């Protein structure tokens, strides 16, 4: 069996692996690295349960080969919290009851994080459009939209505080 040596940084940790060229990134993350927070819900890129960040961009890891991520920085749901401190999106999904069975949640949070990175203050319609590649069967989406709104507000407020602090130090 032909393999290729790859090196991938996942949540800040460098991983080396010898992989078959056909190995999907999601299987590398789950089966080889044990990062099972990234899920698989379809085989056609429709459901988004496998969404991770590759070099800062949202990507469906079931539609990407592991070898394509050679040298890349990958972030998964396991890399979102800072120790015991949850990412604002994780906290908001919890606060707003934005999840039920929890299976779509990691992908949904990763996609929402990418959405907020590209649009810090999205409208209701922009949020719905922004997560339309991620399917949730349990929540009817309303509380997910509310959670993303909560996180957007908190992250904007935190960013302003930080900017203000920097400005006052500079001043």
């Amino acid at each position, binding site marked *: 069996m032909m393999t290729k040596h790859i090196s991938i940084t996942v949540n800040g940790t460098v991983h080396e692996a010898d992989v078959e060229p056909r190995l999907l990134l999601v299987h590398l993350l789950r089966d080889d690295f044990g990062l099972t927070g990234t899920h698989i819900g379809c085989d*056609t890129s429709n459901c988004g349960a496998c969404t991770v960040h590759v070099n800062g961009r949202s990507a469906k890891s079931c539609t990407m080969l592991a070898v394509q991520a050679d040298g890349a920085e990958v972030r998964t749901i396991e890399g*979102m919290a800072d120790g015991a401190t*949850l990412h604002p999106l994780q906290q908001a999904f919890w606060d707003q*009851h934005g999840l039920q069975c929890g299976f*779509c949640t990691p992908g949904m949070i990763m996609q929402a994080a990418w959405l907020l990175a590209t649009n810090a203050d999205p409208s209701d319609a922009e949020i719905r459009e922004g997560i339309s590649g991620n399917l949730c069967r349990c929540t009817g989406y309303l509380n997910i939209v509310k959670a993303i709104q909560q996180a957007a507000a908190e992250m904007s407020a935190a960013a302003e505080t930080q900017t203000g602090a920097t400005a006052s130090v500079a001043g």
Partner: protein
Amino acid sequence: MTTTTYEAQAPTTTPEVGGMGHSRKRVEDARFIRGAGHYIDDINLPGQLWLDIVRSPYAHARIKSIDASEALKVPGVAAVITGKDLEGYGLHWMPTLAGDKQMVLPVDTVLYQSQEVAAVIATSRYAAADGVAAVLVDYEPLPVVVDPYKALEPGAPVLRPDRGEDLQTNRIWHWESGDRARTDAALAGSAMVVKEHIYLPRIHVASIETCGCVADWDAVNGHLTLHMTSQAPHVIRTVVAIIAAGVGLPIPEHQIRVKTHDIGGGFGGKVPAYPGYVLAVAASFLTGKPVKWIEDRSENLQADSFARDYHIDAELGVSADGRITAVKATTIADHGAFDAQAAPLKFHAGLFNVITGSYDYPDAFVEVDGVYTNKPPGGVAYRCSFRVTEAVHAIERLVDIAAHERGEDPAEFRLRNFIPADKFPYTTPTGWEYDSGNYAAALRKAMDMIGYEDLRKEQAEKRARGELMGIGICSFTEIVGAGPSHDFDIVGLKMNDGAELRVHPTGKALLRIGSQTQGQGHETTYAQIVAEELGIPAADVKVEYGDTDTAPYGLGTYGSRSTPVSGAATAVASRKVREKARAIAAHLLEANVDDLEWTNGKFSVKGSPDRAKTIQDIAFAAYTNYPAGMEMGLEAVDYYDPPNFTYPFGSYICVVDIDKATGVVKIRRFVAVDDCGNIINPMIVDGQIHGGLAMGLAPAMLEEIPYDANGNNLAGTFMDYLLPTAVETPAWETGKTITPSPHHPLGAKGVGESATVGAPPAIANAVVDALWHLGVRHIDIPLTPQKIWAILHEKGIA
């Protein structure tokens, strides 16, 4: 029962205790938001092998040969299992929960596309898939029957010759309920009879996690652990034991442990036993190693059990003064090649005879014929209590058509015909005893919330301008909480559920329940029931389920039965603990038990509130200082046998705008007023309703699995089977009325499926309402743009 408003119901416990009525945040979310849930594909055992399945490309064919020689040469492939191999053990067939049997693997004939044909066992996921690709199967195609009406015609190929000599027909069973003669007479005497053919297409629950298992046969100890995605783990354990005993395999029930872990959505699709599970067990038995089977989405959508596929001919009689006189429904139920539905054994059509709905009239008759076709097994639920969605769709469409034909507002027609609030408990013409209801209150509340009168004015103005706007109502009555033991069983197992509560010396507690959670939040809400009943803070109660070695027996979670049955068992077990606590408190307080009163988590002496012992004091005493002659400890078990079903209800109103150029239906607003009795956790109830509404919108607008004449599944992936995204889903507006159940210990009713039942007719009624003036009286769901555009085109509008 008095109906109160949601807002008027204040919790009786403090937020710190967190009993009923508190929107307690979910404890299970702590792991899910971190990606630390433990779903079936997250489980990997040392030495584990992988199982993948060869599936039939044909809907009906004879297997001439299976050649596994090339597959066995694939690196990593350990074994290939065929039907002939299983036949040697008598394992090629398995019983279904509906009393039929289903092929695990065929020996000579396949009956639907994507049916399991062989299993490949290998050292990795990829090697197993390579092995599947290398298995050569030679098929001889046979005539295909996809239309259940044609399946019943003389001369149609008999699809199940394995059945007895007197059953050489594709008719599986005939089921009827109500009084045919009286109903026919009532219809004949009615001023108006509305007739409609209503088809509810084949759909699939498509939980985002597919099905799978890891079977782990420990040959040394003779023990099987089956990790699996099951909504009913105890039933599975018993069925596996029965299958094993039937074929002489040494796997008795006490040596079988089913563990479910976290489940990524169920909705009914994870109730049945699928061939993949049996194959994994057989493969583990054969190899002596753990064997994992995880289906992919295409397999899930093409081979797992399906919902609906009901062809209903329904009639509704109405008197000259606008009162409903009778309902009649004649139905063909397409159950595919094996009757693998998970309905109570005596109820082939489930609870379909709740079709009389929310209305007060004396006569009804329904008959249903189950039919075999060359399709995968049908008849499982889709977030619905045993065919209630089909029943509600039929009656709510008929009622709407009748109102429109009378030139009357559909709300007015419903309000006139509702069962009056003072007639509960109410016995329906088909024999159900509705426990409590106040249908007019719910509809009036929905009308107030949405501004009904203004919307009708707006609609009239828009219609005058040629714009298409519709308003649809659905006033449903559900029947949930199966079920009373005198009539309800699955494979003979009475549909009761157990709860086991242990209070530890330090006042913390462990609750084990027989029902299962696949997103409902039982770890959170069941602790709230204990908090309500015992005053032990919900945060101090650990809830366990999904391990058949430790959880009390239960029939599982489906048909909105958790709160009505398992929740009731939890309340009763808590009350048993409270009664023992009373005796210990009397001992501690040196008082007579009859002189004690229970308030806010403590027993105090009547008239002397300072002489009191908290439940925590009592728990400690239960292990350190209990009365002579009493057993140590503070625990209780209850198996709850519900005296009746519960009957949640509600009224939904949907407003749609239809684009004349494209046929696209836009749901502008959707108001849902639900009454599920007393509420354990309002946040979770709202979440259940939101999700149920989305799963009502789904078949109403998007989802259908059609088959072509050759039995090819035309929507076997998420590319073709369209689940609603956040874009198609409106911002739900929810409201509540509260009419407690008089027989449930908590006055609760169950809510998980109400919205899935109530939403589709509201949407369909809205769309037909928008088009009624053009001569449209019925459209079958899903209401796709293509379908609507074709109608508009035919009417010269588009």
